C-alpha cells in the first residue's frame, strides 16, 4: 500500500493541507499528508489570535479556525492524514521517503510525486552572535508562544523583545494579556520587520515602546536572565558607544527572522536558493527535481497565510498532474531576475503553463509612490509605498508568456515614480 501513493505531502500546516486539497481536486487517487505533530495545522495551532483569512474568507479568523476550514474540506474530499509521523530522510535518487511513527515503526514510501510543505523556523540567538552569558529565559517568540498558548505556562514576568517580526509583535501583546510586562521591542533595522497592522494592534494599542535602529548588545545573568544591554546602531548596524542602556528583565524573546526549513530538501538533492533559503522553483512550484514540488514558507517566507494556502493548492495540483502524467515535461523555463530594489522573490522560473504570481520583497523601504513591474511589459502596478515587511506581487498570465516567442528573461523590480 505504500507504493501506490500518487502525491505524498510532507507537513500538514496551511501549505500541506491545501496541497492535499489541490492534489485531490486535480484527480489524484491516493493523496497522503504526513505530519510530525499529533494534530494538524502546523504553527497555526498556536496562533490563537485573530487576523487570518481576510483575503480568502473575507473575515477575521483565528489560526485554528482558519485551518479548520481547510482540514474539513480535505477530509471531505478524501485526503489521508498520518499524524505523529516524521520524515527523517529522503533518498536523492529514488525519491524514497523514510518515515517514523510509534505504531507503524520505520517505513519507506515511494510516491509518484512529493510536495514539500515543511514551513519555516525561527532564527536562533546564535545567528546574531550577541555576546554575554547563556542563562535560561531566552526564547524565540514562537517557542514562548507554544509555552503560553499550548502548554499554558508563562516563560517569564518581564520581557524584552528583540526583532519586530510578526510573532514577536503578537507575543508582546500576549505577554501583556497574561499579566507580564513588556519593556519594549527593539529592531536593529530602521524599519519594522512585521506588518504595520500588527505594530498598531499589538504595540501601539498597549503602549509598548518600539525602538528602531536599536539592538541587544549583551546578555546578563548566570542561571536565569537578569537583564540585557541595548544600544543604538549606526548605518552599518554597529552599536554606537555611549548609547548603551541596561534593562532589567527575566525574558528575552527573539523575533529576528524566519528561515525556510530545508533539511529534507537538501537530502533530496534540490537546488536551494541562496537568498530565499528555499528550493529553487518554477511557477508550477516544481523544484529542480521534477517529481518534487514545494509550497509555502519552505520556499519563501510569506506575510499572509492566504498566500501560503494559495501556493499549496497550486503545488498539490501540479504534483497530481505530474503523478498522473499530465504535466508538460517540455515546458519553457524562463528565468526571473530581480532588479536593484528586489531582495528576494519566488518563483525563479516561469513556464507559461499557467497564470502565475511572483512574490517579492524590496531591499529598502520606498516611502513614496512607486511602481511594481515585470519587463518586458508584462506587468505594471502603482503602489503608495513598498516596504520590506510587506510582500509585493507581480501577476503574469500564461498567454502573455506564450505570446512572446523569444522571451528569454523576465525582470521584476519596484521603482519610485
Amino acid at each position, binding site marked *: 500500500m505504500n507504493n501506490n501513493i500518487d502525491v505524498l505531502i510532507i507537513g500538514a500546516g496551511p501549505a500541506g493541507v491545501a496541497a492535499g486539497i489541490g492534489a485531490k481536486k486535480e484527480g489524484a487517487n491516493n493523496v497522503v499528508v504526513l505530519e510530525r505533530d499529533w494534530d494538524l495545522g502546523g504553527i497555526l495551532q498556536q496562533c490563537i489570535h485573530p487576523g487570518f483569512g481576510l483575503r480568502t474568507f473575507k473575515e477575521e479568523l483565528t489560526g485554528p479556525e482558519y485551518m479548520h476550514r481547510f482540514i474539513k474540506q480535505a477530509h471531505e474530499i478524501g485526503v489521508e492524514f498520518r499524524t505523529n509521523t516524521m520524515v527523517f530522510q529522503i533518498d536523492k535518487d529514488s525519491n524514497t521517503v523514510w518515515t517514523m511513527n*510509534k505504531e507503524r515503526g520505520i517505513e519507506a514510501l515511494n510516491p509518484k510525486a512529493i510536495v514539500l510543505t515543511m514551513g519555516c523556523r525561527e532564527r*536562533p540567538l546564535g545567528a546574531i552572535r550577541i555576546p554575554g552569558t547563556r542563562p535560561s529565559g531566552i526564547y524565540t517568540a514562537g*517557542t514562548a508562544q507554544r509555552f503560553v498558548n499550548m502548554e499554558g505556562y508563562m516563560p517569564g514576568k518581564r520581557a524584552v523583545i528583540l526583532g519586530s517580526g510578526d510573532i514577536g509583535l503578537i507575543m508582546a501583546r500576549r505577554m501583556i494579556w497574561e499579566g507580564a510586562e513588556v519593556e519594549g521591542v527593539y529592531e536593529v533595522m530602521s524599519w519594522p520587520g512585521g506588518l504595520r497592522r500588527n505594530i498598531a494592534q499589538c504595540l501601539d494599542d498597549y503602549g509598548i515602546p518600539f525602538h528602531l535602529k536599536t539592538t541587544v548588545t549583551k546578555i546578563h545573568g548566570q*542561571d536565569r536572565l537578569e537583564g540585557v544591554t541595548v544600544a543604538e546602531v549606526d548605518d552599518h548596524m554597529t552599536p554606537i558607544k555611549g548609547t548603551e542602556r541596561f534593562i532589567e528583565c*527575566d525574558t528575552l524573546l527573539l523575533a529576528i527572522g524566519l528561515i525556510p526549513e530545508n533539511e529534507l530538501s537538501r537530502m533530496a538533492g534540490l537546488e536551494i536558493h541562496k537568498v530565499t533559503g528555499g528550493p529553487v522553483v518554477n511557477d508550477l512550484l516544481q523544484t529542480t527535481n521534477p517529481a518534487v514540488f514545494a509550497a509555502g514558507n519552505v520556499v519563501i517566507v510569506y506575510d499572509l497565510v492566504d498566500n501560503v494556502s494559495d501556493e499549496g493548492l497550486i503545488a498539490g495540483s501540479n504534483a497530481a498532474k505530474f503523478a498522473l502524467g499530465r504535466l508538460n515535461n517540455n515546458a519553457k523555463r524562463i528565468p526571473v531576475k530581480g532588479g536593484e530594489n528586489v531582495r528576494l522573490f519566488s518563483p525563479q522560473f516561469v513556464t507559461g503553463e499557467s497564470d502565475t504570481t511572483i512574490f517579492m520583497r524590496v531591499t529598502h523601504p520606498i516611502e513614496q509612490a512607486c511602481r511594481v513591474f515585470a519587463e518586458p511589459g508584462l506587468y505594471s502596478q502603482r503602489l503608495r509605498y513598498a516596504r520590506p515587511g510587506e510582500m509585493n506581487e507581480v501577476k503574469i498570465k500564461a498567454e502573455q508568456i506564450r505570446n512572446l516567442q523569444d522571451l528569454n528573461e523576465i525582470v521584476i523590480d519596484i521603482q519610485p515614480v
Partner: protein
Amino acid sequence: MNYDIVIIGSGITGASIARELSRYKLNIAVLDKASELPAGASRANSSMIHGGFDDKPGTMKAKFCVPGNKLWHSLKDELDVHVDECGSFVCAFSDDEIKHLELLLNQGITNGAPGLEIISGDELRKREPNVSPEIVAALWSPEAAIINNFEAVNAMIESAQINGAKLFLETQVTGLLLDDKGNIRGVATNKGDFTAPIVINAGGTHSGEIASWAGDSSFKIIPTKGEYFLLDRVAGTFITSFLFSCPSKAGKGITVLRTAEGNLMSGPTATEQEDPEDRATTPEGLAEVLKGARKLVPNFPVNMNITTFAGVRANTESGDFEIKALSKPRGFINAAGIKSPGFTSSPAIAKYIADMIKEEFADRVKLIPDEKFIPERRNIPRFLYLDMDERKKLAEKDSSYAQIVCRCETVTEGQVIEAIRRGARTISAVKMMTRAGTGRCQGGFCCPRVAEILSRELNIPLDEITRHGGESKLLVGKTKEFLLKKEAK
C-alpha cells in the same frame, strides 16, 4: 558517608581518575557542584586529542600528552565515544614560522609523538582546499584527533559508576576535614561530610583555592577565558581536520576545526580574568576569534554560526600541570591546573595517580584489583548514526525510538528517556548526553519537548524543570495562575 577516595570535580580529570580507580576494590565518591556534566573547562574547549608536539620536553604536559593520546585511541571503542581521527595541521605563514614548525617537530619526536611530518602549503591545500593561500608549510600530526567532549566526560564517569563509584552532583566542597594528626579525613560539602583517607583535588579553575585549604600555595590558578564560534553542520565540509596557527606565548592561538559531530568551530581566545565562573562571551573576544579564523580560512562562513560560547581554563603561572601528593596534610593529592592538553592527558594522569596511591599511600588505602571490573560502556544509541536496519530493530523493540524529539540532530524520544535513566535532570544534561538542542535551531524546537519528557519521566511539574540547575527554571508558572496572582496583588 565513609569512602576510600573522594575526588573533587568530575570534569575529564576527575572522571578519568574515578574510572581508573574503579578498577580496584574501592569506595569512591566523586563530587561536583554542577547539576550536569561536563560543567567546567571540560564542557567548553576545543575538544582536541593533541598529537603531543606542543609541550616542552621535561614538563608534566609532555609526560602525559602522548600516552594520553594513545589511551584515547583505544578508549574510544571501550567507552563508545565519538572520536574523529582526522589529524591536525600547524600552519606556518613565513620562513620564521617554518623554523618554528621544525622546533615543534623535534619536540614532538623527543616526546614520542609518532608520524609527524612537515608538508608544503600546496600539499596542505590539496587536503584542505579552503585554507589560506598564504600558508607556506604545515606540521602534520596524524595521531591528533577530535573527540565529542560531552560524551567523553559522561562516558568516563558512567564507566566509573558501572564499576561502583558514586557520583554526587550539586555537591559543593566547602572545606577539608583533617584528623587530629593534621592528615586528611575527608571533605565538608553543602550536602554534609564525606570522609575518606585520600582526597584528590581535580577542581579545575577552583583547584588553586582548594589546594590553598590544604596549605599548598605553591601554585596559583589564573582563570583564562576562551571564546568560540560554533557553526552549522552544513559548514562542516569546509574544513575536515584541525588547524592551528603557530603558537605564541598566549597559547596555541585561534584554531579552526571540524568537531567530532561535524560542526565547524573556531576559537579560543586566551583572556586572563579573576572570576573562574565568568563564561560570558565578549565583542572583543568574538572579533578576535573571527580574525584568527579568517587568517587560517579566509572564507570562514561565519554566517552559518549557530552559537557562541566561552570556557574558562585553569592556567597556572608555571604553564604546567600541578600533579603531586602533599606531604602534609597526608592523603591530599593535586590533579590541578589541568588545561590544554588536559583532555588528551587525563587518562594518563589517572594511571599516574593510581600508581602514586599504590606506591605512596598503601598505609591509607589498599588498591586491590577488582576482577569484576567491566571496561566496556555502551553509549545511548545514536539514531543519527545507525543504519536503516538497526533503526528499524530499535524502533520495533521500543517505539519511543520511532519518535523524533530534536529534528536538527535526529534525536529520538527513546534517547532522551535513556539519558534521564542515566541521570540527566536538566535540559542541558539531556543536550550533552544526547545532542538534543545542539543543532542549528539551538533547542527552539526540542526544548519544550525535552522539558515535557523530563517532567513526565521524573514526575515533577513542568515549571520546576531547569535549563542547567540552580535558578535556571524555564518557566515562571501557569498562565492563569500567574495572572490571578498578579490581580490579587
